[in-house]
């Protein structure tokens, strides 16, 4: 195990985070605050309580999840696309470092950043609404699992993308819509029956539902199913990453 290499990549990637602290942390925090002001404080007061919690509090887990998963994808994809674009990837490829170690370094840094971001959004939310966390350990578990899974997805995207456009297009056309329609703003039970069934094909629903359960003990889908779906996504992403390094896809000729 080349621990020095993992550490080197991790520190190098985290340094990028500190350098771009404002855009990587302040941006999502500000936009989430805006959601709270608009949906929580302004409009939320007119809504009835959902699943026994006020609409403002109901929003918190969903909004955290939404930021965490979009930021995970964007951080991790940028982290690996950048050296591919500039050509500095040669160094990682020629180093005595395994695929597994490379992924720990890059994905670990991206996931760390997402976890920090999620925590900051939670703290910010506390300024706007009152909420409690029923199962803190599960809350952390869902946060970490989601950060890691979507950072892996971002890593895959960063390896696949051939240009800046492709790098943007997947988050814009797939991740963001799935996140919006993943039950961040509503409970699945509020949808007509047809759309309830359609929604069950959206993996984000399981994440948001499980995460919300860890706050309020109520969920759209059974929490075990949420956990299983998250784990399944993690396994799929790991398998793709394994395949990438096995075949050298877009990394080696």
């Amino acid at each position, binding site marked *: 195990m080349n621990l020095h290499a993992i550490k*080197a*990549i991790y520190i190098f990637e985290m*340094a990028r985070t500190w350098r771009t602290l404002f855009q990587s942390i302040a941006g999502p925090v500000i936009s989430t605050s805006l959601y709270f002001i608009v949906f929580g404080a302004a409009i939320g007061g007119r809504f009835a309580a959902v699943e026994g919690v006020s609409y403002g509090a109901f929003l918190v887990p969903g909004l955290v999840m939404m930021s965490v998963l979009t930021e995970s994808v964007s951080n991790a994809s940028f982290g690996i696309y950048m050296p591919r674009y*500039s050509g500095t990837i*040669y*160094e990682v490829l*020629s180093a005595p470092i395994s695929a597994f170690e490379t992924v720990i370094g890059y994905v670990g840094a991206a996931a760390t950043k997402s976890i920090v971001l999620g925590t900051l959004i939670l703290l910010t939310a506390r300024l706007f609404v009152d909420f409690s966390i029923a199962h803190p350990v599960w809350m952390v578990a869902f946060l970490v699992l989601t950060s890691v899974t979507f950072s892996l997805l971002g890593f895959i995207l960063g390896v696949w993308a051939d240009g800046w456009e492709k790098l943007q297009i997947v988050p814009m056309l797939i991740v963001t819509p799935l996140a919006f329609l993943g039950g961040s703003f509503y409970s699945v039970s509020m949808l007509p029956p047809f759309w309830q069934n359609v929604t069950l094909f959206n993996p984000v629903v399981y994440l948001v539902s499980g995460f919300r359960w860890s706050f309020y003990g109520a969920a759209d889908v059974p929490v075990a199913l949420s956990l299983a779906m998250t784990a399944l996504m993690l396994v799929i992403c790991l398998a793709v990453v394994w395949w990438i390094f096995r075949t050298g896809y877009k990394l*080696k000729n």
Partner: protein
Amino acid sequence: MQPIIEIRGLEKTYASGFQALKGVDLDIPRGEILALLGPNGAGKTTLISIVCGIVRATAGSVTVDGHDIVRDWRAARSLIGLVPQELTTEAFESVWATVSFSRGLFGKPPNPAVIERILKDLSLWEKRDTKVMALSGGMKRRVLIAKALSHEPRILFLDEPTAGVDVELRRGMWEMIGRLRESGVTIILTTHYIEEAEEMADSIGVISGGRIVLVEKKAALMEKLGKRLLTLNLQNPLEAIPAELAGYPLTLSEDGRELVYRFDNQQERTGIAGLLRKLGDHGITYTNLRTEESSLEEIFVSLVKERA
């Protein structure tokens, strides 16, 4: 002594169908400087990239200090430092951070003293806190060398190290490469500048069309292939070469004032004494004479031409 790198039957065909290497066998002697010469597209960079683990070989094997680059890749790669041809550098990192990163990547614990010595050797110490993108091209090249040296490799690959580097800096780089060699590092460099190979290399390998055409000690190569020329400046111009001298490979310059004699360095009897005697017999007098050796460049061009 066992060669530090042994390459056997190495082939590479790219996905496009282009066959960059067509069965390369090469032994690289320990502690030497090997210059790999070849025209563009000869396969120099592909060869280096395979040894360093960036490109996968289609067939053949490579061992680095006895470690197979596929089975025992970790041990093999730890020994190698690579300076790529392109100026691929991080943009926003400081020189210090990017060089320290490389050391970690190759599995070495942090050692600020080593990094400091490398940066000082490469005249980058003053720039250690500067962002890489703010450096000139020559300095970026040196940052790449510093990165490659950061983990104290036993083997250093330099892919066109002095391309786009000014003459003064090139001299400095040659000196640095010489010092590295003295410390026992094996150096493989590819170059277009024959002068560079002639100046520094212990051995010369010529690669052309995906094959190694020749590998030889530089001195032996020059001896073996080097033709010498004897030029005589004549006191009185000649209209033609006298018939009595027809047996000698002579050429006469257009103005008839210079007589050039080609001879082979290898032969014991160069024929110079006999030629000069005959000239005296015919009353041809000369004011000056000089001999020259053909340069590596001429050797190289003739080799590559032969193959083409």
